[in-house]
């Protein structure tokens, strides 16, 4: 397959949440999401309960995919930052480490300049965590480590889901 399965472990999940939690405060943002390029929500901090996070993740990934398509058409690799300005709330969307999407939702208590500045710093930290995560998954795969929860499921387990 073209992409290996993305696996998130407890340790890296906490590290990721620390970084975006800090970014939330430093950028004075309302909500921050991390989304996989395929539309799966990885994590979110802030006023997440006010939003339909699953839909947000899917549409963000669709948005990035569509602008990525546009970029290729004009000979660019990708547009790494998107900014959507609303009457009250704004969205700053950026690609981190070529793989995940960082979404920052903010209002007039913050500014685009501040968000851009803080996002840049956090992106580097997030990139490093995801790189570590990829290496970890690869190593585990090489070792044939069987902590994969699905290796032991039975046909009955699968059938039970549909009963």
């Amino acid at each position: 397959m073209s992409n290996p399965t993305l696996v998130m472990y407890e340790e890296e999940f906490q590290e990721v949440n620390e970084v975006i939690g800090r970014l939330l405060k430093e950028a004075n943002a309302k909500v921050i999401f991390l989304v996989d390029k395929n539309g799966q929500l990885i994590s979110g901090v802030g006023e997440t309960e006010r939003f339909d996070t699953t839909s947000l993740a899917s549409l963000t990934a669709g948005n990035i995919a569509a602008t990525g398509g546009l970029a290729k058409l004009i000979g660019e690799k990708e547009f790494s930052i998107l900014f959507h300005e609303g009457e009250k709330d704004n969205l700053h969307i950026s690609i981190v480490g070529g793989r995940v999407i960082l979404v920052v939702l903010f209002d007039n208590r913050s500014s685009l300049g501040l968000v851009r500045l803080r996002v840049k710093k956090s992106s580097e930290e997030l990139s490093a965590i995801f790189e570590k995560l990829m290496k970890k998954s690869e190593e585990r795969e090489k070792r044939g480590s069987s902590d994969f929860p699905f290796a032991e499921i039975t046909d009955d387990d699968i059938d039970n889901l549909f009963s």
Partner: protein
Amino acid sequence: MSFINYASREINCKIVYYGPGLCGKTTNLQFVYQKTAPDAKGKMISLATETERTLFFDFLPLSLGEIRGFKTRFHLYTVPGQVFYDASRKLILKGVDGVVFVADSQEERIDANIESLENLRINLKEQGYDLDKLPYIIQYNKRDLPGAMSVEELRRELNTTNVPEYEACATTGEGVFETLKAVAKLILIDLKKGK
């Protein structure tokens, strides 16, 4: 490409409904949405034109329950079927875990089915996937229409690789859940193999 989160104990998979324009992909999702308990589904999103033709995609998140302590979630997507939306169609296939090809059983749509199926193979290949190695099933939709071809004929034209096939009428819901269950099961069996 599924996403496994050990921290929140979740497994997320992506299913794409593919097929020619007006074959009933969106109708499949709408039926699933209507018949699913509110706590097991999220909001259905349709990015469509004013005449209700899919412009980019439909999206429906479903949670099926737990396997060995892991919540299993399926994200259902449809592609825009109309030929000229090919660039958008390619994007939706990114990270796909399983494909349902929805065929229109009407005789006059057989060429459109064949063209769409070829387009599916080509677009998957561009993303580095091989249709024959993916969890993949065919649904013969619109079985209720008078101009429907026989399943044998459809099979000869569309199912040369002999994948699981289901008859359906998406407007009444016949065969819709059977199709979904079948592809979800194939994906889970694939995951079990650790692909």
